[in-house]
């Protein structure tokens, strides 16, 4: 189980690289500009069931996207929850 921390928006190449690397049972945490994935509910990460996906609440708030995430029923964690995810995963990879 690996925690993948994605910091780039869906418009970059990086999310596609993550899709190739991520395995069933892993966790994807979207942070910084990565939270703009909220704006596209058709993205693969929102429609699959192989791994859990979370958005970092602080970065959603900073970009005015909290209500959109809530409307779509997307799961969020605060910074405390981010630390909790790192406790639960022995390894993490930051994609940037």
């Amino acid at each position, binding site marked *: 189980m690996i925690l993948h921390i994605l910091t780039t928006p869906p418009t970059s190449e990086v999310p596609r690289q993550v899709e190739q690397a991520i395995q069933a049972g892993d966790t994807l945490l979207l942070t910084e500009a990565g939270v703009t994935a909220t704006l596209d509910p058709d993205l693969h990460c929102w429609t699959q069931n192989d791994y859990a996906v979370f958005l970092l609440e*602080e970065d959603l708030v900073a970009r005015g996207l909290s209500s959109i995430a809530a409307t779509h029923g997307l799961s969020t964690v605060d*910074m405390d929850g981010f630390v909790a995810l790192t406790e639960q995963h022995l390894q993490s990879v930051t994609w940037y």
Partner: protein
Amino acid sequence: MDYGLLVMGAPYSQPAPHSALRFAHAVLARGHRLVGVFFYHDGVHNASMLMTPPQDELNLRDAWKALHKEHDVALDVCIAAALRRGVISQSEASRHGHDAFNLEAPFELTGLGQLLTLQQRCDRLITFAS
């Protein structure tokens, strides 16, 4: 748990240092130990003592310094990444014939070996890069 952080983003141009700092405080608030922060690539600019943001904005260097003072967190800066970006201690400035320097304790210029030591010593090493 023992945590280490790797910070590779420049202050005020990339969100990575702010994210790392908030994460650091959350780590400590959950009762973990933050052993050290390693600044690499553009992250070395976090150590510049000449950093002078407006008074009503967070001074990232001072925030890292406070973390060291209050929680004994080691602040290591990659010497190769720092020197080529003009982030330099007094002794290195003297050695290279410069009149000025902009890095002082509690930040320490170290080699990449220190990053490996941090990784081996910690239960978790989290990278912050943007």
